[in-house]
């Protein structure tokens, strides 16, 4: 593998910010580190960059052990959340910085800078200072400064967090395009699942300094490996209850009087406490009186949230249990106050034991 993290741990005082992380990343891959704030994803990125030294473990880039090397000898580049452009340098000088540090000849340097200005549509702005640029333009310069030196890997630390939604979606497409064009791995840190899902080949979900799963984005979304991933990625209905019956093929859970059927048993035995997740878009709606499938639940529509192409129906059972169903908007959906039946297949229920032992050191 092109980049390999072997048993990386980082301890601050008595806290393990990262705990025994192993990852292998291929050369053409776009990888996201997805996790809530404080999960250790940025620390992990800084370890790869060389800005932090791991307490344990090795970092290998392109076959070379770089664990002991300072950042400037690793051939990495980084795009920071706050851009961190040099305020005393013009756009051109900011882009020239990595090249000057490489002692590149002037002619080649100009060529490279013009190339970067070109692919990032920054022509005509090269004489400006960073504080004369808009947020989006600063972001492009930061990206250009990352790409201009043709690094072995580009590290991106929440680079879109300071941009507005529209610009962010535009940049997502562009960043992915640059990555494919350059054929180097991008490691992208974000707390935003949509960003991670839209750009990545694979996503590592980081929680409490620990990689919960590192998998293809579709696998991660469709078959979440842990309860944390099921909750953090996508939007789901969460149920907590006790397993009442389990055999090889299916499993029944009693969640506060509500009986749920799931296919597969997730390694659970009767009597175990369990979490069950059903993605909002897997919950279908049928008219009152409908019976069928594995799970069906009479509800009342409490509110409808319009999301454009689809709508979210906030439902409530007679017991006061809340539920959300996301449905594409085709024709007339049920309106507020209507009685409906929410139903979903047992195969769409993801089951997890309540207290998984992650074996964390803390």
């Amino acid at each position: 593998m092109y980049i390999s993290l072997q048993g990386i741990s980082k301890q601050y005082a008595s806290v393990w910010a990262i705990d025994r992380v192993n990852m292998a990343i291929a050369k053409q891959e776009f990888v996201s580190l997805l996790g809530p704030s404080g999960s250790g994803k940025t620390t992990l990125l800084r370890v790869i960059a060389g800005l932090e030294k791991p307490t344990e473990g090795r970092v290998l880039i392109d076959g070379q052990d770089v664990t002991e090397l300072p950042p400037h000898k690793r051939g990495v580049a980084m795009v920071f959340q706050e851009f961190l452009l040099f305020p005393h340098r013009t756009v051109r000088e900011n882009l020239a910085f990595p090249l000057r540090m490489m002692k590149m000849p002037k002619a080649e340097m100009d060529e490279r800078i013009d190339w970067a200005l070109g692919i990032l549509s920054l022509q005509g702005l090269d004489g400006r200072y960073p504080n004369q640029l808009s947020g989006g333009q600063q972001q492009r310069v930061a990206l250009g400064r990352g790409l201009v030196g043709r690094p072995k890997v580009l590290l991106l630390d929440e680079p879109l967090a300071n941009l507005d939604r529209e610009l962010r979606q535009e940049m997502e497409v562009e960043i992915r395009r640059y990555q494919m064009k350059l054929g180097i791995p991008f490691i992208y840190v974000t707390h935003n699942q949509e960003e991670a899902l839209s750009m990545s080949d694979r996503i590592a979900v980081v929680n409490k300094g620990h990689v919960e799963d590192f998998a293809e984005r579709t696998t991660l979304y469709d078959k979440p490996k842990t309860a944390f991933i099921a909750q953090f990625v996508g939007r789901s209905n969460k149920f907590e209850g006790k397993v009442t019956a389990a055999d090889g093929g299916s499993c029944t859970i009693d969640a506060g009087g509500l009986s749920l059927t799931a296919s597969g048993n997730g390694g659970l035995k009767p009597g175990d406490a369990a979490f069950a997740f059903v993605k909002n878009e897997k919950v279908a709606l049928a008219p009152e009186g409908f019976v069928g499938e594995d799970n069906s639940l009479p509800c009342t529509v409490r509110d409808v949230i319009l999301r454009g192409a689809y709508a979210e129906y906030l439902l409530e059972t007679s017991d006061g249990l809340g539920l959300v169903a996301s449905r594409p908007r085709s024709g007339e959906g049920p309106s507020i106050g209507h009685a409906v039946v929410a139903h979903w297949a047992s195969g769409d229920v993801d089951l997890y034991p309540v207290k998984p032992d992650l074996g964390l050191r803390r």
Partner: protein
Amino acid sequence: MIGGLRISRDPRAWIFLGVPSVFLVLLFVLPLVSMIVLSFWRTENYHIIQDWNVDNYYVIATAGAYVTFLIRSLVMAVIVSALCVAIAWPVAYGVIVYGGRYKLLLSLGFAIPFLTGEVLRVIALQGLLGPLGLFNGVLMALGAAPLRFIMYTNFASAIGLVYLYLPIVVTVIYLSLLNFDMRLIDAARIFGAGPFRGFIEVTWPLNLFGTLIGFALCFVPCLSATLVPRFLGGPSGTLYGMALAQQFGESGTWALGAAMGVVLFLLSIAGVLLVFRFVDLRRSGFTGFGRS
């Protein structure tokens, strides 16, 4: 960009800008003007005689002593300011990087010397450096020869001036570094700069403006220093400021003193302008122009 001299029409602007303006005119411009006028008169037997002439300036330029004092003061001020900057940088940097939660406390520590009077501090130094002072006293008690170069010399004056103005310079550079985004150093390191190169490319230029303010705040009072050379400088340590003070004191040649003051004022302005001439504020990351 400087948006012309458009000042807000809000009446409050007149209070906020007007009060300091009146203050400056009364306490700074008026005395300065009166000093300039006095410098073109003359004094005789402790009386001011109002006949316009340029004799005072002629004396300053031709009587060798004043030129010597002036050059000595300039050299002294440059050396002392440079020393202060050289010492203040690592101190301020250390407090910012390693100060942690004691940063504020440590930075307030810079102000402690100001709690005593300047005279007291200089006399205390005299006690340390003089022939019977702590250093030489200990040396002689041990049977060694005293260090002559710290007794009533220009060297002793330099020590005194560095001691007096170091807290100001440290504070100014500290404030400059406090506003400096240390993560820019991370950016420089990522993009290929080692620690030294990162300092030269990023940290130094972005704090140059603050450093120059620190330099100027040391340089200007050093030029006019009177107390330090009087107590520590010894017979060949007379500085310009001390000679100037004498005109208003013992010798009673106020008009000459005023002329010396005018020369000093012009020199200070020239010095500061010269320094800032070489600084492009944009190149120091100065964003005080706003974005309009």
